[in-house]
């Protein structure tokens, strides 16, 4: 995440350096390759449980984590592979986790929905819709209480907004923000569906950013398929939240072109045409076109990036596949912290 950033004086989007765009393109392509490998692993029965991929949404986390600074925290729901990869966890460890191996980033104990890399700022991976939101608000308070200038990047889905946990946490954030005690950036990944339910069928008021008005939290929207637009918002808002200690909410309009979960085949809830329309605005495709148009990269470079990504992920798959299952004794560790490691069986 080291590429130089360029901001306009007025906080508007400006052209991003070619090198940086190529770098971001590479990341997105890696994520896509990773997710496709996951889908394959699931079909092969190598990955179990629930699996939710990020295909179509890559520009969101890629854009925001570009503004991540050491000490900041990222928290999200179960669609969390991209966040781990972008924060720098080795794809091998991510894939090994999904394969349920002892070399996985959480020792095979969590699986796809529960990725953690606390050292790098990834505070999880949660499976209960909305349940992680209060935690992220708590992180923000703690970081100010401890006198740092770190912030929380809190990702949530459009579906999560209907949940009471969202409401209570957002209200706390607004309240604590009055005293500069809640540096939390709410990033609403509005991919327009919560499982099979469209936003229109979830709420009568579909302007998700504006829902934050109810909590006194400033908010805006951005096109989540346009990486440059995302970068601009990310840079500006991250620093604003860091400076003020006040929360901010941004609704990122995006679309998952993959099914909700890997076991969700039918997709009766949306038309094929709709998916096709959105594929035309695929964030990777859009960026690729831009790179080519601006001579930031040529076909050769693109091919190189793609095949490097494939290779990287193939290695991750190999690593995962060849790793051992966790030791059986690991079943009983990590239940309690502290000397006693009490497991309830005296």
């Amino acid at each position, binding site marked *: 995440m080291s590429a130089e950033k360029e901001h306009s004086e007025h906080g508007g989007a400006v052209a991003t350096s070619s090198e940086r765009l190529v770098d971001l393109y590479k990341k997105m392509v890696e994520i896509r390759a990773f997710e496709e490998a996951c889908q394959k692993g699931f079909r092969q029965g190598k990955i179990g449980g629930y699996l939710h991929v990020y295909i179509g949404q890559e520009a969101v986390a890629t854009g925001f984590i570009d503004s991540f600074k050491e000490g900041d925290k990222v928290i999200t729901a179960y669609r969390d592979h991209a966040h781990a990869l972008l924060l720098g966890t080795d794809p091998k460890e991510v894939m090994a986790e999904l394969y*349920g191996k*002892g070399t996985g980033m959480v020792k095979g*104990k969590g*699986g796809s929905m529960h990725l953690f890399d606390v050292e790098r700022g990834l505070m999880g991976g949660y499976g*209960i819709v909305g349940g992680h939101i209060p935690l992220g608000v708590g992180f923000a308070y703690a970081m100010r209480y401890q006198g740092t200038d770190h912030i929380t990047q809190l990702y949530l889905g459009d579906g999560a907004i*209907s949940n009471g946990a969202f409401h209570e946490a957002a209200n706390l954030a607004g309240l604590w923000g009055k005293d500069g005690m809640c540096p939390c950036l709410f990033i609403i990944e509005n991919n327009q569906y919560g499982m099979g*339910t469209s936003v229109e069928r979830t709420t009568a008021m579909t302007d998700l950013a504006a829902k934050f008005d109810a909590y006194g939290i400033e908010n805006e929207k951005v096109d989540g398929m346009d990486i440059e637009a995302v970068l601009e918002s990310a840079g500006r808002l991250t620093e604003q939240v860091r400076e003020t200690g006040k929360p901010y909410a941004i609704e990122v309009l995006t679309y998952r072109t993959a099914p909700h979960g890997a076991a969700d085949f039918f997709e009766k*809830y949306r038309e094929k045409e709709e998916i096709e329309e959105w594929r035309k605005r695929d964030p990777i495709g859009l960026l690729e076109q831009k790179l080519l148009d601006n001579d930031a990269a040529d076909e050769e470079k693109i091919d190189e990036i793609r095949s490097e990504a494939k290779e990287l992920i193939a290695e991750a798959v190999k690593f995962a596949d060849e790793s051992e299952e966790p030791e059986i004794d690991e*079943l009983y560790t990590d239940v309690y912290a502290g000397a006693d490691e009490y497991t309830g069986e005296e």
Partner: protein
Amino acid sequence: MAETKTYREALREGMVHEMDQDESVVLMGEDIGVYGGTHLITDGLIDEYGPKRVIDTPISEGGFTGAAIGMAMLGMKPVVEMMTWNFSFLASDQIIQNAAKVRYFSGGQVEVPLVIRGPNGGGVQLSAQHTHSLENLYGHFPGLKVVSPVTPNDVKGMMITAIRDPNPVIFLEAGALYGTKGEVEEGDNAVEFGKARVAREGSDVTLIAYGRQVNLCLRAANTLEEEDGVQAEVIDLRSIRPFDEDTLVRSVEKTHRAVTVQEQWRWFGVASEVAAIIQEKAFDSLDAPVQRVSGAEVPAPYARNLELEAFPSEKQVTNAARRALYIEEK
């Protein structure tokens, strides 16, 4: 007349049976309509009954469960799908504080004919947040009924009974068994609550379970017969609240030994209650302590080998029976 059907089909048949007889029966839950239901239990029903009777809800378990309680108080009969019982903590205030108690604290002025149903238990690597067996949790509260059918015939018949019951019923489905098949009676096969089922007769030891652990006990019983010449009786509790103490006690009076098996954690679980009841009501018949087999005392892990280790195994059950019989474990 009986036909072979899956647990899923039988469950749905029970609901449809009552929907066809009673307009006040409606279905509610996340993605049960347009999406077809996460477990396809309700697939197609929105086309048949329309969106006013098959109500897709936002992701707000507390809110829609509460709304369903309100509907029930006015005479509707909502059947709420908890997509999985793991999400029900979010509705637990509504279930425990309102559904279970409003009849009492209104001095009997209202009834709450409500069914809340969905898959309970684990087994498919869903890991810590998506693996719970909550029968003891809900079974603790007066005002609720709690049932846990394991056969296709029971899931249909108990669903019919649940919908007709004027009280809130917590309907815990064996989620891992939606695809399993069994004979299902045609038409109205209502199964009374509070009657356990002797799933296998035997004279040497009683194995007590409910939900999918009944199948585990049946397998263990076969092994015990083959390997040890032991005749195990297997009791399927079926209903956790009300609870059939008599069938249990009668069996233990015959076998003098009991093993109780649950997928849920040991502490304060159904198996503890079963052991407490047996020592209380069949004290003089008991030739050995009641043995309990429970899930490992850890949040459910993801990795397949750990998950298998965390759930009760046939070996644990047969060995528990052997302990009760004072014969050597294998």
